[in-house]
């Protein structure tokens, strides 16, 4: 009997054990994958590894744009238990207005929205406080926010990003792929309290590459400051400055006015318009600046030389359907270098006619006009240059003096670099490095011969020394350039207006140019709106600062040479030449009048008699005291009294020469030194 009981006991135990074993097999073998999946779903959390957007740096490594992590709070309005009470609680934690928050949550709840941003960019303490509430309807999202620490500095170059940190302008858009990076993924093993135990990275996150620009932060600031001051002073509508190294095309500064702050989204149409990069996106007729191309073509394709006399027809030239005037005192014959120095339109037209259509078009293209420069910025304009079959009867003449062609400030900088670097057309560069990798320089293309370039440099120095660009003369450095004052065409009335695009394009030093600066102001008015008046002073300040930053040694003594020395070295010709210190006032810039031909009885319009050249006159009063006055006040008072002033520096007037109270002679210029 006992044996029977033992047998029964053994049997029961065996069955029980078998059942357990069978269940174990079912759990760990048959349903293994299913339970593994369930366990992973409970224990593992898949998180996205953020890919930091690359920073944009200036050439010295200072950040111009960078992303910082930020936390934001959002709620599910449909899951909020008590709208009033909970919104009050949340508002207290996030330092928000409770009534406003309640209204927003209520509105979202009534509209059956399951998502509502409560506050973006919260502080770490606020994030901690919200997390400690441990409410299922409150979520803290970790994201990234783009910041531009210098506000408006280089905004047109940098561009901006949208809410998803995707570039929507400037470098941010052009190089978005490199900046964006690639997010990764990781699986985190968590415990019951959702604390991480282990992490397995399934996909590595790749941060975006940092981009180092060629822009120099300091120079950019000076360029933006000066163009803003000039636009406000001369009541222009917009302006731009480009500073470039002529040999490798590195853009050291690209300023555009009006500015904007990329940290703030645009709120009005004017904000949107301000985001237009005038330096490379808005073409304009260059005016007399284009004479550099005309003369370069002449030196290469004709027998004209700097001393070749050019017939300026006394200042008036009749063309089919047009009369061209030289607004200066009418010139008879001028050597070619003086045509450039005094910016004679008629002289340029004669030179252009000698060059011919085909060669003119060829050299305009060689200097890079009519095509994009290839700078990595969206919205670049290639300007406008019509093909020869589309040229009109007087197109050659117009193009010779910078009309019927539209260019951008950046194209002008590239063109003057050809002269500055010995004849090579370089590609402007904006990106110096991508990550740690320096980008290679594209080999330049020869546009003109080196000797042509050197000759042009000397002629352009004449513009600054004796011509229309005296305001651009630098202290301690030689400089060369060309002014331009192109009338703006009104498409409504089909007439040229008396508003100008005043420009100056130049380089310094002359012997071995280290920097090229082009300044353009759009919409200047009247006699005070010419390039030599509005743009040349900006060139002076910006070029001086650029040479100081680049540590370029001076090639001139600091004190300007005496009048006697300069007068003795100058070649006299039939036009009055202003020397340093007490030259003729720069009254008129190049200007052409697009006046319709007034038909006469015989259909002939004769030339106008040339005006007498202006000479230094007798004593006309005493020199006023400008000390302590701002630049604008000095210019206004001087203009009211008819006294030409040569300002230097910025800020308030400190020193003037001749001193206050001394005798002022008609035509004498007063030099005023400004400082802050």
């Amino acid at each position, binding site marked *: 009997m006992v044996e029977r009981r033992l047998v029964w006991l053994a049997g029961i135990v065996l069955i029980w054990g078998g059942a357990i074993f069978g269940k174990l097999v079912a759990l760990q073998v048959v349903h293994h994958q299913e339970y593994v999946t369930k366990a992973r779903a409970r224990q593992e959390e898949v998180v996205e590894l953020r890919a*930091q957007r690359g920073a944009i740096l200036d050439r010295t490594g200072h950040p111009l744009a960078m992303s*910082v992590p930020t936390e934001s709070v959002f709620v599910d309005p449909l899951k909020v238990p008590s709208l009033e009470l909970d919104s009050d609680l949340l508002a207290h934690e996030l330092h928000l207005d409770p009534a406003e928050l309640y209204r927003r949550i209520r509105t979202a709840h009534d509209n059956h929205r399951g998502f509502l941003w409560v506050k973006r960019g919260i502080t770490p303490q606020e994030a901690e406080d919200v997390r400690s509430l441990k409410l299922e309807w409150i979520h803290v999202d970790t994201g990234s926010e783009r910041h531009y620490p210098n506000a408006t500095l280089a905004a047109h170059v940098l561009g901006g990003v949208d809410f998803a940190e995707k570039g929507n302008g400037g470098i941010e858009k052009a190089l978005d792929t490199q900046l964006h990076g690639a997010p990764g993924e990781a699986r985190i093993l968590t415990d019951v309290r959702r604390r991480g*135990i282990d992490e397995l990275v399934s996909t590595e996150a790749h941060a975006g590459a940092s981009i180092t620009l060629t822009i120099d932060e300091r120079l950019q600031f000076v360029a933006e400051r000066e163009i803003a001051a000039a636009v406000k002073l001369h009541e222009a509508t917009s302006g731009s400055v480009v500073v470039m190294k002529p040999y490798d095309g590195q853009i050291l500064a690209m300023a555009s006015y009006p500015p904007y702050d990329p940290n703030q989204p645009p709120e009005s149409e004017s904000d949107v318009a301000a985001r237009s990069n005038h330096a490379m996106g808005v073409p304009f007729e260059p005016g007399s600046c284009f004479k550099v191309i005309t003369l370069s073509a002449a030196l290469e394709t004709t027998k004209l030389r700097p001393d070749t006399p050019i017939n300026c027809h006394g200042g008036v030239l009749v063309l089919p359907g047009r009369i061209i005037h030289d607004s200066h005192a009418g010139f008879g014959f001028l050597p070619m270098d003086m045509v450039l120095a005094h910016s004679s339109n008629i002289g340029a037209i004669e030179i252009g006619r000698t060059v011919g259509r085909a060669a003119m078009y060829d050299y305009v293209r060689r200097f890079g006009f009519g095509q994009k420069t290839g700078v990595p910025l969206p919205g670049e304009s290639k300007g406008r240059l019509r093909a020869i079959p589309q040229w009109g009867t007087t197109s050659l003449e117009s193009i010779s003096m910078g009309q019927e062609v539209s260019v951008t400030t950046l194209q002008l900088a590239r063109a003057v670099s050809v002269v500055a670097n010995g004849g090579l057309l370089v590609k402007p560069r904006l990106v110096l490095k991508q990550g740690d990798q320096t980008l290679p320089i594209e080999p330049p293309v020869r546009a003109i011969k080196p000797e042509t370039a050197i000759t042009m440099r000397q002629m352009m120095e004449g513009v600054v020394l004796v011509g229309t660009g005296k305001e651009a003369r630098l202290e301690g450095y030689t400089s060369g350039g060309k002014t331009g004052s192109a009338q703006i065409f009104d498409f409504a009335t089909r007439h040229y207006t008396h508003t100008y695009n005043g420009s100056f394009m130049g380089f310094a030093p002359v012997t071995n*140019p280290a920097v090229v600066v082009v300044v353009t102001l759009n919409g200047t008015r009247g006699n005070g709106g010419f390039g030599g008046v509005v743009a040349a002073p900006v060139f002076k300040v910006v070029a001086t600062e650029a*040479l100081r930053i680049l540590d370029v*040694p001076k090639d001139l003594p600091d004190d300007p040479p005496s009048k006697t020395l300069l007068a003795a070295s100058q070649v006299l010709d039939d036009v009055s030449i202003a020397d340093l210190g007490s030259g003729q006032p720069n009254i008129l810039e190049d200007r052409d009048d697009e006046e319709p031909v007034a038909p006469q009885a015989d259909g002939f319009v004769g030339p106008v008699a040339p005006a007498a050249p202006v000479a230094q006159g007798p004593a006309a009063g005493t020199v006023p005291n400008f000390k302590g006055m701002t630049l604008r006040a000095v210019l206004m008072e001087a203009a009211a009294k008819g006294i030409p002033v040569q300002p230097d520096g910025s800020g308030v007037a400190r020193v003037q020469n001749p001193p206050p109270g001394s005798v002022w002679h008609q035509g004498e210029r007063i030099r005023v030194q400004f400082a802050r």
Partner: protein
Amino acid sequence: MATQPAFLTRTETPARIAVPAVRLDSARAERDPFQLRALPHEDVFFYCKKIDNSRLVREADPRAGSACWKVIGAAGLVLALFTGVLAPRVANTVAGYKLEALRVEAQTLADERRTLELEEAQRLSPERLDKLAQGQNLVTPTASQVVHLENKGEGKVAMVKK
């Protein structure tokens, strides 16, 4: 251990109590028909037997001691093995907690650093420095105030530095 009482193995009722057998010459005495059969175990009397075990000394079992130690050793070995298997896992889990906490802290510090870098960049912006300089009555040096330290002789052509 007490022996099994004999009565438990007894399966028959005891025979009638036998009187000393006196062989009678007479014929076998006849059974009294009115005599009752004895009840089972009637002849069994239980009484407490006093056993004095005070002088009884349990003899040590040498085999039991070694068996005990063997059991203890085996249990200890099992425990050690068990701990040896589990301990790394536990340590791994604890280390995992620390590691994750350190990762989170590293990420937090990296984020803080970026925030500070942004603040530094804002404080070093040219516009702010310019305003501070103006407040300190500092001016941009004019060209005549800038002296290049390299000794360049008179009449040398301007050289561009890279």
